[in-house]
């Protein structure tokens, strides 16, 4: 028992597993039966998919040693930096990969993982506002819409249950960066979000879908990958990328240091890098691919979808959430606790 504190901070040891089974730990809707069946047919490797709904849950599980079965993880951009820092991710051997050069230029050398040393970009997207036209006064164009219409929208708004994203919106409204480490700016963002807090129904990353379809919610802050699929289900729903800019996120493929089946992991990454495979997956699951070769194969109506692939001027006003120092992270957390506990 005296050693438990040390154990807590040590990455889990490498496990050994069945070479014919690949366990992947991913987000919902990032793979489907078709994709998995095609991989199994090609390689003879059985794929077991587990789902997480926040980076923190995945990180905690990996760090506490509960993820020893996984050979593939799907961490988001800034989480890759954190996990590399903690020694949880293996370096990627680029000589074992085929098609890395097909990645779009922006993802050849991303800031969160220079040279893609520990991760391979899988898809990307934005964070924006999903709204139901029937019960929303006007059409939102920017984040400030929430504050301007807070009385009309009262208790019909959900925001993401995500500290950096949601405090980031308040920072953006005030004209600051998502990645600020200036305590005064972070506190100002807290004050701004506090104004809106009484009008927020819930902080939810998933689970708002039925309520917004039924019109019980007017607006939900959502990731583009979730929101766009919903807008296609029901024409009353629309997704907007806020005009002043938003956060751009990338979800990646990474191999944990504890991976029991590294060979299968490389096969999985290579499989997803194939333009035809990536194209078919994107057509079914509707996320934005970081693979230029796959993008070129897509039909025009998907390539020209501004919500899925926003124009460059929107991208220029947006930024990726980056890993920040512990002191600033603590400050974010303190204000986030204040907001969520009010």
């Amino acid at each position, binding site marked *: 028992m005296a050693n*438990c504190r040390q154990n807590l*901070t040590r990455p889990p040891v490498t496990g050994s597993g069945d070479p014919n089974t690949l366990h992947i730990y991913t987000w919902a809707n990032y793979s489907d039966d078709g994709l998995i069946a095609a991989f199994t047919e090609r390689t003879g490797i059985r794929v077991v998919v587990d789902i997480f709904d926040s980076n*923190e849950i995945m990180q905690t599980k990996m760090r506490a040693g509960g993820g020893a079965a996984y050979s593939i993880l799907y961490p988001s951009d800034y989480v890759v930096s954190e996990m590399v820092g903690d020694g949880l991710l293996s370096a990627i051997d680029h000589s074992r990969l085929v098609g890395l050069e097909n990645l779009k230029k922006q993802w050849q050398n991303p800031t969160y993982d220079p040279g893609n040393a520990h991760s391979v970009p899988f898809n990307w997207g934005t964070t924006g506002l999903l709204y139901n036209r029937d019960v929303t006064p006007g059409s939102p164009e920017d984040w400030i819409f929430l504050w301007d219409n807070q009385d009309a929208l009262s208790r019909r708004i959900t925001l993401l249950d995500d500290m*950096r994203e949601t405090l980031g919106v308040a920072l953006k409204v005030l004209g600051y960066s998502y990645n600020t480490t200036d305590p005064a700016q972070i506190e100002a963002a807290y004050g701004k979000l506090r104004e809106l807090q009484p009008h927020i129904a819930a902080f939810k990353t998933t689970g708002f879908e039925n309520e917004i379809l*039924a019109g019980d919610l007017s607006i939900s802050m959502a990731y583009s990958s979730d929101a766009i699929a919903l807008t296609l289900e029901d024409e009353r729903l629309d997704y907007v990328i806020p005009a002043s800019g938003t956060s751009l996120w990338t979800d990646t493929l990474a191999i944990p240091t504890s991976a029991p089946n590294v060979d299968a992991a490389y096969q999985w990454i290579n499989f997803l890098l194939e333009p035809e495979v990536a194209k078919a997956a994107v057509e079914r699951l509707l996320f934005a691919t970081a693979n230029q070769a796959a993008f070129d194969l897509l039909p025009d109506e998907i390539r020209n979808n501004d919500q899925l692939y926003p124009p460059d001027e929107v991208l220029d006003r947006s930024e990726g959430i980056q890993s920040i120092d512990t002191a600033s*992270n603590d400050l*974010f*957390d303190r204000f986030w606790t204040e907001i969520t*506990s*009010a």
Partner: protein
Amino acid sequence: MAESPLPSSPAPDWGSHLAQTLAPQRWLGPVAMLGPSGLWLFLLLVIPTLLILEISLVPGLRLGQPAGGYGLGNYLQILEPVYLRVMGRSLAFALGSTLLCLGLGFPVAYWLALMSPKPWRNLLVVAFILPLWTSSLLRAYAWTTILRPSGVLNTLFGVLGLPSQTWLNTPTAVLIGLAYSFLPYMVLILYASLEKLDTRLLEAAADLGANPQQRFWKITVPQTLPGIAAGCLLVFIAALGDFVVPTLLGGASSMNISRLIYNQFLGPTRAWGFGSALSMVLILAVSLAIALLLKYGDRSTVTETSQ
């Protein structure tokens, strides 16, 4: 050390007594019977609780960062206003749902135990606890369907000409959900207690001129007080640590201690030390309630209903 052997119990006698006690046939049975459950409790309850206690005594312990020395910092952090507010809210939810359960449950239990037709009684009791057979998660989801603005309740209110309510994602929804979840426990315990009510006393009181109100307050209530205490404490304990109902029904307005603990372990800061300290406080509060239950509650009703 008092080692003087008493004259009345000579040493050889004591020795043979000891030998008898240590004889395998004396202790093998009880050890074989109690061993598995004792081991189970030790491995899965005692050791984990001690681990939580140890982690809670390391201020600022984060997963993935080097640990510092021992101290009480995590416990002092609980005294910050924002966390005290969360504690206060948890207590209010627990007390509120206990009172609701008592108010709603007593008449039902009274009717079941004393007034319902005897042949139907057991069936009625079973019907009342039927909801407990489904998952609590499912029942909480059902309540979101009932309480949401376009939900069942507001449709009903619309038909009746009542103003529509927006209870979902408010503390009201949490109280409704908690009271619903734990009402069957309250009713079962009160039922067991009321069933044993000596009705002859009520008759005697009536003969002596006591009105129904006097009979209720002077005979029924005092006689069932241990059952009332047991039911209240059980509901209080369950409601204090509930996670599902506040999370699904309370929205942004109902952070309670279990949600706060969850956030420390699976949230962005991974403050396991602080989360463990919060857990210890919850364990302590619940243990205190259980101690009260054992002292003042009608233990027989609790064990009877849990069988």
